[in-house]
């Protein structure tokens, strides 16, 4: 039992990181029907942007601010010079998907080129704090609290603000949004900026777990996709729930009573994904729709 609680706690930590990344991915998908394979490498970009700051002697919470701006700026800039022009030229979903894979490679190997293949750290990982039923490092606690705050902020924005409602409207029905007088290009740009900021933030959270390296976001990408799809693609709340399930499942899979090697834990998370989709093909919060 104790072991299970500890594994669930670990799962919530990784699930929190996945959720922050997954929400950014699903917001963009909801509006553009773009499956962005470069999303994982944007996490890495955010994590490294913060490394630059901490390397210069800044505390992480200060270094995070320019890093988040870099994430938002690069995603927004790419909408301006790449995604927007591509859509106006009528690029298909498959074209855009292939472009995003190319973009992922460019980003990743640019980071390899600049930072090399070494492992960076924001600082030493502190001793675990015993919470009675489980123990977590202070960094883990920051990850969970920080992610929850970010996700709460996104939910509040989507639910209460004019721009958030416009984002949901656009995700529901782009033509009708246009016919209602919503400036679709502007809302799209704002969505990218929010997704970029959120992704960089998620990258920093991922780095806070211990290590920053050029493949870190790429390694997490499939789990992010799993969280998004499990929750129902395009649904921000679904992405939060789905990511948490994926995070907790893969940690629980390593429970000694199950006896699986930890190399298989990702496989178990995907098994759960497949089982859920067999019962509910549109995902937990998703609507039935043709892509």
């Amino acid at each position, binding site marked *: 039992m104790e072991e299970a609680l500890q594994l669930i706690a670990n799962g919530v930590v990784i699930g929190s990181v996945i959720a922050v990344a997954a929400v950014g991915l699903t917001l963009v998908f909801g509006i553009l029907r773009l499956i962005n394979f470069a999303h994982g490498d944007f996490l890495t970009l955010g994590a490294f942007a913060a490394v630059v700051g901490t390397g210069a002697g800044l505390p992480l919470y200060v270094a995070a601010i320019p890093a988040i701006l870099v994430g938002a700026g690069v995603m927004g800039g790419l909408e301006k010079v790449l995604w927007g022009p591509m859509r106006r030229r009528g690029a298909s979903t498959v074209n855009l998907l292939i472009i995003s894979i190319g973009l992922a490679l460019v980003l990743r190997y640019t980071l390899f080129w600049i930072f090399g293949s070494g492992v960076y750290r924001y600082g030493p990982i502190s001793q675990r704090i015993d919470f009675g039923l489980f123990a977590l490092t202070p960094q883990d606690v920051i990850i969970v609290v920080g992610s929850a705050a970010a996700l709460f902020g996104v939910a509040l924005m989507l639910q209460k603000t004019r721009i958030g409602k416009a984002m949901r409207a656009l995700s529901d029905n782009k*033509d009708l949004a246009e016919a*209602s007088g919503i400036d679709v290009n502007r809302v799209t740009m704002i969505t990218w900026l929010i997704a970029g900021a959120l992704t960089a933030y998620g990258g920093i959270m991922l780095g806070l777990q211990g290590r920053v390296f050029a493949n870190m976001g790429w390694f997490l990408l499939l789990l992010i996709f799993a969280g998004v799809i499990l929750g129902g693609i395009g649904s921000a709340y679904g992405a939060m729930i789905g990511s948490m399930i994926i995070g907790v499942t893969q940690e629980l899979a390593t429970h000694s009573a199950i006896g699986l090697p930890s190399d298989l834990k990702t496989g178990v998370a995907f098994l759960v994904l497949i089982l859920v989709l067999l019962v509910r093909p549109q995902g937990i919060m998703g*609507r039935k729709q043709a892509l």
Partner: protein
Amino acid sequence: MADVLLEARDLRAGYVPEVDIVRGCDLDVAEGDLVSVIGPNGAGKSTLIKSLFGLVPVRGGTVRFKDEDVTGAPTHRLVAAGIGYVPQTENVFPTLTVEENLEMGAYLRPRILEDRYEELFEWFPILAERRKQRAGTMSGGQRQLVALARALMLQPSLLLLDEPSAGLSPANVDVIFERIQLINSKGVAILMVEQNARRALAMSDRGYVLEMGQNRFTGPGKELLNDPKVIDLYLGGRASGGAQSA
């Protein structure tokens, strides 16, 4: 005759390059008028209304709205100029509540929101009861009311309706047509495309019969209803009667 609100001359439009679906249409809507466009399937009725609203590329001819040339103008500009539009299908935001749907209708002028809620909930009382319900969970007839209310949020002077009665039960068809007449009686000009030709013409100030993307017959709604050629060709013959029904 009242002032002309919308005027289309020799309009040509289509989705695919080189293939015009609307092939030289003329159309006038005066302020406060209720105008119907009828015609067989594939006559280009919906394409006509979409081309007026910037949703289908215009290839030739002119469109003037309130004495301004708006030929090929982008949709959001036409919305700002005072045109509302209700598509035939997928005309609500399904995951948004009724209230949020209406809020999106007033996106360009959020300050008028509260005043507009008041008037529209008076016109559509059922929506006031369902304010917090998601539009996607409502019946077809109720969704159509949400769609109408959304399009009326900015107080348009012209409302474009693409087959407002399509897919509705007979009882709901009555409700929708009755609401359309109410909206029109408040001074909003209406241009609607309808399959339900008899009902549409009976309540229209003017009617246009479209065929192969061109004007075939034009005139006051009741005149067209009683025109033997229109009856034979488009209203299913005299035998079925109903020309008097209004």
